[in-house]
């Protein structure tokens, strides 16, 4: 579904009545021709009695990088995990509100979870290749979804590894156990797994926090490259990383999305005092 930015929040009247949520501004470069890929509306989430997300509303533009920042425990990872329903894996979770991917509410019905997660892929904080060979790691998704077989699969594996710039290094080591790779290579491999199933969205949960500076830089370069093909949402505790790579940034605090807007605005002209406090390092 292709909606214009102007009516992005048109059908969420609660926004105006909820004092705790600042109405997100429409970032200037959110022009007419651009498409909203994911839209969360009035999202509330409880772990047992604890409310981890409070009335979160935001939109993610297609083929852009959206960053979520905030101190630990603010709910940014939780929000991320709502976008591909990974929170379903946890007991005792209750979710209200809606998340639309390409206009379809993913929480509306039981839905086709595997198809959703294939479309909205995820990269984790600690790279988590399976204890299988490099080849089998990349081939895992296509096999599971019956997307390719035999020779086709070989081609797909090569293409996916090329996409993350691993093919030249690893083409002779495809049968080796993926656990032997370096951390950075593992993280790239995990992204290659998503490329292989033709994910459209990549959710990244602090993808660089286990990496050294050099590897961080290389993954960030990769993200900029991937932007051409994917919509990326990244959670990071490193504000500068958000400033460097993202187009839009959301700042979260204690379960609320305090502010959401163009990255340049958030970092230069934050509208909320708390955002400013965080960005200038008064806490966190």
């Amino acid at each position: 579904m292709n909606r214009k930015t102007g009516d992005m929040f048109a059908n969420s009247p609660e926004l105006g009545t909820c004092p705790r949520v600042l109405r997100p501004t429409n970032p200037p470069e959110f022009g007419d021709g651009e498409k909203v890929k994911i839209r969360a509306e009035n999202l509330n989430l409880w772990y047992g009695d604890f409310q981890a997300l409070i009335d979160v509303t935001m939109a993610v533009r297609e083929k852009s990088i959206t960053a979520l920042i905030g101190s630990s425990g603010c709910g940014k990872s939780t929000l991320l995990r709502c976008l591909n329903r990974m929170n379903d894996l946890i007991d005792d979770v209750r979710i209200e509100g809606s998340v639309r991917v390409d206009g379809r509410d993913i929480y509306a019905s039981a839905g086709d979870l595997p198809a959703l997660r294939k479309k909205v892929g995820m990269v984790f904080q600690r790279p988590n290749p399976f204890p299988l060979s490099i080849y089998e790691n990349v081939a895992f998704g296509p096999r599971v979804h019956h997307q390719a077989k035999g020779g086709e699969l070989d081609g797909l594996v090569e293409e996916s590894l090329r996409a993350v710039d691993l093919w030249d290094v690893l083409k002779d080591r495809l049968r080796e156990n993926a656990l032997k790779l370096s951390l950075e290579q593992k993280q790239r491999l995990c992204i290659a797994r998503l490329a292989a199933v033709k994910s459209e969205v990549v959710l990244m949960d602090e993808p660089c926090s286990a990496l050294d500076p050099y590897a961080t830089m290389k993954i960030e370069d990769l993200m900029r490259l991937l932007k051409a093909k994917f919509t990326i949402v990244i959670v990071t505790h490193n504000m500068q990383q958000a400033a460097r790579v993202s187009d839009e940034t959301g700042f979260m605090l204690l379960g609320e999305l305090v502010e959401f807007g163009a990255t340049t605005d958030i970092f230069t002209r934050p509208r909320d005092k708390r955002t400013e406090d965080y960005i200038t390092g008064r806490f966190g």
Partner: protein
Amino acid sequence: MKRSLRRAKEFALERLLFLSGTASVVFVVLIFVFLLREGAAVFGHVSLGHFLGAKFWYPISSPAKLGILPLILGSLLVTAGALAIAVPLGIAAAFYIAEVAPKRLRTVLKSCVEILSAIPSVVLGFLGITLLVPFLKNFLGLPTGLTAFSGSLMLAFMAMPTIITISEDAINAVPREYKEGAVALGATHWQTLVRVVIHGAFPGIIAAAMLGIGRVIGETMAVMMVTGNAAVIPRTIFEPVRTLTATIAAEMGEAAQGTPHYHALFAVGIVLFLISFAINLTADLFLNRGKKR
């Protein structure tokens, strides 16, 4: 001074803790030494090769024939039968309990497994002899229901708690990251289990099966009560057999101290001890390998 007194007290306490810590080693050594003390003498009557390889166990004929091959084969047969039943069932149940069952049901199932492991073997043996044995006799039309198969059935249930609990631990120990990675790629729960979790849990599952063997081979009462105790080399699983453990339990009461028979029973104990030692050592290796990965 008060402080140095405290130090001295703590030092003494720490020594005591250390001694208790090493007690297990002492006991294992003691067990081996005292089995040897009574059992080694049998080799004054028969050679080791004869003891392990001869086909006849007639301990009270004169001269006594002390070949434990029929007993070893009896134990192996009963064990193999038990494992063929318990390993697939146990692993499947472990997967169900660890991964599929809803929370409440899981608690119930786990309690059932715990209860099963708590039922004394003599009670199982009693039920076996009163219910299972007559049933098998009639159902299969056998001359007697006291067979290796009855023993295998009983033992399968005795090994199941071990196999289930340890496999379940291994499945739970598979890093959450693997499961999340698979699910996040859109794999179904079943695909995640079959394609990823099983790989991670494999060493633990092997260890579970090994420890199941250990439990089965060492089991005494239930097996003694339902297998018929015929010390002959078994041809099929539907014949009476006699196991190593049952031989000791049944005959020790009648063997006069100091006779070859008496020593031979201790020697059987040594064989059992060494078997369980080897099994536990191997299982431990697998368990550690599982942890390292």
